[in-house]
């Protein structure tokens, strides 16, 4: 239903301009609708329920401009990335063990599935009871809540590799390192990037819960403060910090995908 120009050939410049404008509009429209609805509501409801987005905008700027508040944002981002990095490394290692051995797979799969059913808040309770350091508790929660998904995603990517291509590469007798560099890494990269995108969204939702373990900084801590102050504009402004972060990182990952996966054939007909 969308009428984007075909990928091959170079369309005239004015065509490209209008295509770009159209894409921008398509991107902005959903946000504009949400913003307009909220702003409309703010005309009829008290400030503490639906504050004007202009207030929220100034609060956002304040967070950006104020060094100590922006530090809270950075601390939370760091916690998200550290947790994801940890769970990716562990998950990839587990997935490798699982593809190599059926026994390991049979043993680990149920455990990971079980973990998937445990709510983030339960991990918060466990972490508080088991551990002391705040940062360690948060890392623990972040890793355990994202680990099962990461492991299963990497496992799926490894299992999905083409057996034909694998055999072809094997026929050249690669060393282990070469096999990984030449075949495994490029074959699973698309799925890995998708996994990062998905888990990034999950992690940014879990992190504010994880920060309830007694953190005295970070977006979760700030949200708790806003709740105590009954400050809706503040709560929104802090929430938006994480939303922006997720949007920026996902946008960058999409850019990487567009460049790294140029080799893929594009069909002009969508599914």
């Amino acid at each position, binding site marked *: 239903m969308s009428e984007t120009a075909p990928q091959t050939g170079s369309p005239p410049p004015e065509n490209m301009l209008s295509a770009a404008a159209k894409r921008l509009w398509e991107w902005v429209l959903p946000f504009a609708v949400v913003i307009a609805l909220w702003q409309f509501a703010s005309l009829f409801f008290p400030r503490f329920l639906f504050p004007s987005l202009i207030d929220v905008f100034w609060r956002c700027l304040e967070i950006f401009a104020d060094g100590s508040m922006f530090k809270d944002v950075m601390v939370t981002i760091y916690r998200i990335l550290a947790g994801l990095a940890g769970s990716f490394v562990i998950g990839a290692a587990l997935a490798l063990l699982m593809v190599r051995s059926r026994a390991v797979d049979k043993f680990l799969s149920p455990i990971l599935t079980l973990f998937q059913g445990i709510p983030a808040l339960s991990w918060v309770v466990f972490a508080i009871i088991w551990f002391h350091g705040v940062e360690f508790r948060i890392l623990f929660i972040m890793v355990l809540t994202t680990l099962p998904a990461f492991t299963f995603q990497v496992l799926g990517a490894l299992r999905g590799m083409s057996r*034909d*291509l694998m*055999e*072809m590469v094997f026929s*050249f*007798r690669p060393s282990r390192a070469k096999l990984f560099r*030449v075949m495994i890494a490029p074959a699973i990269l698309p799925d890995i990037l998708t996994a990062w995108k998905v888990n990034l969204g999950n992690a940014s939702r879990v992190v504010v819960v994880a920060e309830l373990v007694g953190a005295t900084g970070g977006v979760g801590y700030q949200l708790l403060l806003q709740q105590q102050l009954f400050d809706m504009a503040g709560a929104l402004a802090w929430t938006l910090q994480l939303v922006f972060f997720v949007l920026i990182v996902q946008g960058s990952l999409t850019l990487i995908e567009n460049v790294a996966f140029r080799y*893929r*054939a594009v069909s002009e007909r969508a599914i």
Partner: protein
Amino acid sequence: MNGDATPDEAAIHLADVSKVFGKIGTDAAFRAVDGLNLDVRPGQMLALLGKTGCGKSTIFNMIAGLTAPSSGSVRVDGRDPFAEFDSFRGKMAIVFQNDRLLPWRTAIQNVELGLEMLEIPAAERRATAQQWLTKLGLGGHENDYPHALSGGMRQRVSIARAFATNANILLCDEPFSALDESTAGRLRAEFVRLVKENGKTAVFITHSISEALEIGDRIVVLKRPAMIAYDVRFDTSTGPEEREDIRSRIVEVLAV
């Protein structure tokens, strides 16, 4: 009856080789190759001919070291290709039925693949790959990704990839069977020329009698489960009538 080479001098030596899929002794067991004896001497071009499903690819995989025989012994250059897998690096090259190009690599990068395993410096790798692509008529397509090439061009790239490593033994599993007849014919002629020019030992698997006659110095006809039904040698001096005789004999053997 199986040859003109002793095991020691044969490039490829199969002695009483069987391959059973599934657990031996159960109903699920399937005997794909049964007591096969075969010697290929260095420099020979052998066409292995047989109907689909007769076990050609299974034999191929055993020679390539990708599968182990259930019993019997497989030797390539006097060594076990499955057990001593890594020792054949750069010694054996394979052309598969489908091109099996890495989709994330350009044509020239695909040709360089085998050379990378041999730790050849990048500049030399590039030059060799370029030379083989040009030889196979793909000059100008070096930087195309596989999806932008036609089936015939892709198979040319995979032939270039096999020749680029300069391996002495070439194994081909029905490499042209997915191509249209005129493309296949042209590539076949080129392939035979390259093998002869470079003095390779080649095992060429096919289900087409005409292809076997065009390729081989020798044709081995297989019947299911892979056993030799007919083994014939000929050369460029073999006249057309003789070739016709060979053809009708093969047809006869396959029909039984």
